[in-house]
């Protein structure tokens, strides 16, 4: 009898799932709007473990109590969160049958960046034949990593295969309570990447190329989690130099990095989302929370970022230096042109003894854009002998753009040494004429000068991306000097 009633109960509740809101489970996308049902839908779609759904719901409930932050030096129209679509199934079918159908302007940019043909196809959403490199490259890549015990897969896959690791680390660096966009991401994130480097392993490959091919369709709420166990090393590259035109306007990603004792993580990113037209219409809003923690002694994490895209960027890759003798680095080049706005920088939180951090930020503003550096260096009471060096440079092209620097220093220990240097410069007419006189045209000259200015940061990128990033800087500033 009891069994039977249980069965009925199960059927009823099951059918609730099946025919209630969840009749839509066959749909490829959730209806617009954000409610607990939307979140259950996403979680069910992805067949997630229970703890994940609970995490999402907690985050959602918290998000509802929050207000969108307004302190950043950026302006954009209010985002109507209830009109957005929070889940759509990844496109299985290719958008185009051949490269001939792709916007020639996009192809021209690929050409300028020197992106290999097969990757061009993948990025533009062109159907590729079965022998295409990415498949074979992808599998050899995976094999090499597996041999070393490195886990590198999508976040969804990790939730299925390694739920215990996700449960342990997810939200440990960026809790859902952290901020408005972090709460939103935690509630609705679509997918992302997970990397796990076991103890003592030096990851044999840059976790980059493979990712790039697959990066185009990861959706608007990405989540990345990187865990480096004791004594391990990994260089991780995310993002894409190719201009990604995306139907989603709002992007709110989370990246969390955990470096245990003696581990080192190098995280590099190139962000080139569609910035909108010259008036800034239709561009992507990129509101990202990135944070790493040097959990153990002698751990080291470095962020290197090249930001050229998006209409609005709001991004502060930060580091918590908890382990004694741990090191944090932040290298950034942010370019804004036309009406782009970027408010970016970092936070270095020194908790452990003898912790050191370096911040090199290079802002480049052109057109009528606004580029702000915002940074916090904090040394806690126990952070004996903490050291920080910050250098924030701004380069202006033309006289209608803006560069702003907001450095905050919060020193809680007398033995801390915190240095901040800042410069603002313009590309001078003398410099341009000098280049012209040597036969280098205006755009070449700007590219050369800007790349020279950003060299300190570009040199930190993995080799293959450094070359593309250099070209990207020049392309981003095309037409910025008349």
């Amino acid at each position, binding site marked *: 009898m009891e069994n039977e009633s249980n069965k009925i109960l199960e059927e009823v509740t099951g059918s609730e799932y099946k025919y209630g809101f969840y009749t839509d489970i066959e749909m490829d996308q959730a209806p617009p709007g954000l409610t607990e049902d939307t979140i259950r839908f996403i979680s069910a779609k992805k067949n997630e473990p229970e703890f994940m759904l609970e995490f999402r719901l907690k985050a959602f409930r918290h998000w509802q109590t929050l207000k969108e932050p307004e302190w950043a030096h950026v302006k954009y129209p209010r985002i109507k969160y209830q009109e957005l679509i929070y889940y759509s199934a990844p496109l299985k079918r290719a958008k185009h049958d051949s490269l001939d159908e792709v916007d020639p302007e996009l192809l021209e940019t690929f050409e300028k960046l020197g992106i290999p043909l097969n990757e061009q196809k993948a990025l533009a959403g062109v159907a590729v034949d079965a022998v295409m490199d990415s498949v074979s490259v992808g599998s050899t890549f995976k094999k090499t990593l597996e041999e070393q015990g490195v886990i590198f897969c999508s976040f969804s896959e990790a939730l299925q295969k390694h739920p215990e690791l996700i449960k342990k680390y997810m939200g440990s660096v960026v809790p859902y309570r952290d901020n408005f966009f972090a709460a939103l991401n935690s509630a609705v994130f679509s997918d992302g990447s997970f990397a796990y480097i076991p103890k003592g392993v030096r990851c044999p490959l840059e976790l980059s190329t493979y990712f790039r091919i697959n990066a185009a369709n990861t959706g608007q709420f990405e989540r990345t989690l990187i865990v480096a166990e004791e004594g391990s090393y990994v260089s991780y590259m995310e993002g894409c130099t190719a201009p990604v035109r995306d139907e989603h306007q709002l992007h709110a990603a989370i990246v969390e990095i955990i470096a245990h004792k003696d581990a080192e993580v190098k995280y590099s990113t190139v962000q080139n989302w569609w910035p909108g037209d010259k008036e800034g219409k239709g561009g992507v809003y990129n509101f990202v929370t990135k944070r790493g923690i040097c959990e153990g002694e002698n751990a080291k994490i470095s962020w290197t970022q090249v930001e050229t895209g998006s209409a609005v960027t709001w991004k502060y890759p930060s580091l918590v230096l908890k382990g004694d003798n741990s090191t944090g680095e932040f290298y950034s080049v942010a370019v804004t042109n036309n009406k782009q706005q970027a408010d970016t920088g970092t936070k270095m939180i020194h908790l452990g003894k003898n912790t050191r951090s370096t911040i090199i930020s290079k802002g480049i503003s052109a057109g009528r854009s606004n580029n702000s550096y915002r940074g916090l260096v904090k040394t806690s009471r126990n952070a004996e002998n903490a050291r920080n060096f910050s250098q924030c440079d701004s380069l202006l092209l033309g006289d209608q753009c803006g560069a702003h620097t907001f450095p905050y220093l919060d020193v809680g220990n007398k033995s801390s040494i915190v240095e901040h240097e800042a410069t603002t410069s313009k590309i*001078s*007419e*003398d*410099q341009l*004429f*000098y*280049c*012209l*006189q*040597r*036969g*280098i*045209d*205006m755009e*070449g000259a700007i590219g*050369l*000068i800007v*790349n*020279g*200015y*950003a*060299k*300190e940061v570009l040199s930190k990128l993995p080799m293959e991306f450094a070359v593309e990033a250099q070209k990207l800087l020049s392309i981003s500033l095309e037409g910025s000097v008349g």
Partner: protein
Amino acid sequence: MLSIKNLSVSIHGKPIIKGLSLDVNAGEIHAIMGPNGSGKSTLASVIAGRETFDVDEGEITYMGKNLFDLPAESRAREGIFLGFQYPVEIPGVSIANFMRTAINEKRKYLGLDPLTGAEFLKLMEERKKMVDIQSKLTNRSVNEGFSGGEKKKNEIFQMAMLEPRLAILDETDSGLDIDALKVVANGVNKLRRKDNATVVITHYQRLLDYIVPDFVHVLYDGRIIKSGDKSLAFELEEKGYDWVKKETA
């Protein structure tokens, strides 16, 4: 090669060059001398294509082409080189990278393939030796933290790399000690060929001890008021500019 006819140039309405004519042929070295403010540097800038000046009158032809039809970078690619009086710094851009970009832009313009890395390095080593440049210099950022002498030597090195048809050296000798002066002069002499020409703009006769000009012109108040052979330079040194002024008044 270069023919300037009745050139008048002003800046913000203020006349600087007032009806200047000059002909420079292949194989020749010309020296233009004159006191401060006589228009020497303006003349060099106008030939190179700087746009801060207004050309009010006159014409300049170069290799049969109207120079004013060519933007500054095309003039450079056509073989006009300006040795700057005050070379600017370009932080983060190595001289090697700068020169490779410049040379390949020029080659592209001329319809030639770009130099490969190896070809470029070979050329660079060869030219460094030719003009006596320390090998370390080319790894440094363009003019950044250079001494006055290093900057000028760098100009001569770039000239050797680009092999101009017409080189204009704007007070390349100013502020140089005697050793640097010799390096500069040596470079110019070694690069001298039958099919190229050099215009040396200078304040002092001193440089002309090392670079022997075929013609000397005295520029005063925007006009060439006297031309002659190298003896004119000695005479100027001895008697001063007032002498020419009085003589031509």
